[in-house]
């Protein structure tokens, strides 16, 4: 009789081993797609695989990674942020004007915009509004504000920001170090700390969380505030690279950020997200977006369409692997 539970246990653990393997495979998929893109680049243009090449190719990856992390926080709570792109543009305009000319005002505006994000979270929770609608509306607000601040392209990034983004560490290109740092910090905060569990749990089973005595208002506000914070960092990083701003500079980031999260192994609902995956997803997209296509001699007119095609292929591969998990 005593041997019996052990035997059923064996069966259960092999079953779970299968599931764990499938999850590992899914977890490796973002890294795998990044390696594929890198191999393609190496094959097309071996000289690109160098310190200088990476610094150049991955330059724009930092703001994309930060915007992706911002989107990931929102997705962790089963919401979607359609305003992150224009928000990044708005932050860029503030950075290139106020933050340089009147740093205190600039900082206050940026802090205020994070508060607006937090309030949006509260509004969405309290009034039970669909986040897609609220953030779609907000995207026009941010865009309008950006145009008010900077009607035509211009402005200049603060010097300290320029020198930070131009930092050249030895051996490893700066974008790679920055990506590792972002991934490590967010992974620790969201996946390892005890409050990170609560934040993710609010996406997994909100009712269970409130029954255990946690405030869902607080988790929602927290997730949106974090999204705002990383949106601000993304906008600042972007201006540090481009040196001047444009009201439309971040518009493409909304979809890139969503795609980055999903590519990185996240799911739209259920609180299933992966910060490390999201950063890798952002890097993959940044590389696939323009360097790869340029090396493939695809004319710029076709690059946007080719970009979309790459997205579909990679996401389709993810779905195939997720299905094996079932």
């Amino acid at each position, binding site marked *: *009789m005593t041997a*019996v*539970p*052990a*035997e*059923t*246990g064996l*069966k*259960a*653990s092999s079953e*779970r081993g299968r*599931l*764990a393997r499938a*999850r590992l495979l899914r977890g490796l998929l973002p890294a795998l797609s990044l390696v594929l893109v890198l191999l393609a680049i190496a094959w097309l243009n071996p000289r690109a695989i160098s310190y200088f090449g990476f610094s150049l190719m991955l330059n724009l990856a930092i703001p994309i990674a930060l915007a992706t992390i911002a989107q990931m926080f929102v997705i962790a709570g089963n919401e979607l942020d359609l305003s992150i792109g224009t928000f990044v543009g708005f932050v860029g305009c503030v950075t290139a004007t106020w933050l340089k000319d009147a740093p205190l005002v600039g900082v206050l505006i940026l802090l205020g915009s994070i508060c607006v994000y937090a309030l949006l979270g509260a509004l969405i929770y309290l009034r039970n509004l669909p986040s897609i609608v609220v953030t779609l509306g907000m995207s026009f607000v941010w865009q309008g504000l950006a145009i008010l601040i900077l009607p035509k392209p211009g402005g200049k990034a603060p010097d300290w920001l320029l020198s930070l983004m131009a930092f050249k560490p030895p051996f490893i290109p700066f974008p790679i170090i920055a990506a590792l740092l972002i991934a490590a910090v967010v992974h620790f905060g969201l996946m*390892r700390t*005890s*409050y990170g*569990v*609560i934040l*993710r*749990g609010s*996406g*997994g*089973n909100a*009712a*269970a*969380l*409130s*029954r*255990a*005595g*946690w405030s869902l208002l607080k988790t929602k506000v927290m997730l949106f505030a974090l999204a705002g914070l990383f949106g601000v960092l993304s906008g600042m990083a972007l201006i540090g690279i481009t040196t001047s701003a444009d009201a439309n500079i971040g518009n493409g980031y909304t979809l890139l950020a969503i795609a980055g999260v999903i590519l990185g192994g996240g799911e739209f609902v*259920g*609180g*299933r997200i992966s910060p490390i995956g999201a950063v890798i997803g952002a890097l993959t997209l940044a590389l696939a977006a323009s360097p790869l296509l340029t090396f493939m001699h695809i004319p710029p007119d076709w690059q946007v369409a080719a970009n979309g095609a790459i997205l579909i292929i990679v996401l389709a591969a993810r779905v195939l692997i997720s299905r094996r998990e079932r």
Partner: protein
Amino acid sequence: MPEAGTEIIRLDGAEKHFGAANIDIIRLDGAEKHFGAVRALAGVDFHVGAGECVGLVGHNGAGKSTLMHMVAGTLMPDSGRIAVRGHVEDNYSVPRAQQLGIRCVFQELSLCPNLSVAENTRINHTTLRGFGWRRKAADLIAAKLDEIFPGHSISASDIASDLSIGRRQMIEVARAFTVTQDPLELVILDEPTSSLDAHTAGQLLAFVRRFVAGGKSCILISHVLGEVLGNADRIVVMRDGNVVASDAAKAFDRDRLVTTMGGAEAREKIAAKIATQKPETGPLRVRARPARQEDGNELVAHAGEIIGLAGLAGHGQTDLLLAIFAAAARTKTGIEVTAPVALVAGDRQSDGIFPQWSIAQNIGIRSLKRLRNRLLISPQREAELATFWQRKIGIRTPDMNNNIFSLSGGNQQKALFARALGSDAEIVLMDDPMRGVDIGTKLEVYDLLREEAGRGRTFLWYTTETEELDNCHNVYVFKNGRIVANLTRDELTEEKIIQSSFGDAA
């Protein structure tokens, strides 16, 4: 009884212990609750003493869940008062209840599917934080699982969604008994065994007895009356938002309980009826061999038969049902299906119900071909089908066009039965469909199944409740994905099933 309220002494501060044994852990006086026009509780008096296991029974909708939500602090009564250990609690809430050592395992599973077992434990303990909290949480839950369910084979790092529904229930129960900073006085177990097989259910109930013997208290809600009769010290019966009886468990037997609960009459001798009804062997409907079967055992079902699938939970019964379901659409080796098939899902929230749809739409979805008028679905025919089954199966609702969630759990399940029985399916597969359904509904559905079987329909019925197997003509016992025994009606006993479930695979 009302005088009891005046005895409650209002005290502030840290006073305690005066004749502690006589003070109730919790006492509700005149608790009333309305949801819109519906009166869920009509002034209920309820109390639990220290070292007492109170069994709470009643049909779905009798007010048990509402009452328990109040005890747990998730709902506030409209009027009446709550006292814990003699103190009147004016601002009773979930955090307050937890501080006072009152926990609840809710009927709907409340784990976060995206989190690991240890992380799910953390959610219930605010003090599991800071450096090393993951280790502490993992040790805490693992130790409790070992204590309640020896040989459970659950690891603290497993992600909840990877585990079977039975294992998830085990974790939830174990989690409620874990202790960090707050004391543990009273645990409410709402249908704790609904997804557990007989073996683990036994482990849990034995633990509950040990827990109560240690001076703690427990409220046990179960539709399996035998569990309540065998484990509770006192039984409280609810009906229509009132407490209709409260007496020592010894004073009740099954018949008295069922009569007190009202509604359906006690019917013990289904078995005899089935035996006399044993049909002529009709044409073959299903012949299926589980994928992992190595010997010649196979499941055979003819027209008019009710076939039971038994054994420990998660040993391949559901897999076989799903394989048969798939084989009806596309030929599969080892499985022969000769008639249309319908499936009544067990996990009705995730596999059964279309949450945004009305009751009528939920019933009609399996019969769209018949409801179609050229290219469109005829609302009239849909309504006819729904009304017919509303009457036949007794779905309690003022309007079949209401959203499916306006129904209680038992009535939702009836709608799913109506979906299967209202279709053209001659074979109905049932994946433990009676989970958490009250006995009144069950008896009604059993009758219907027998009637439909009499008309030549075939039922394949996986159930975790041994009592339900009494309705079957033939029972196949599963172990490790294989059929290990085939028992006829006359050979069927609980011992035999357990013996086959644990015995060596043939």
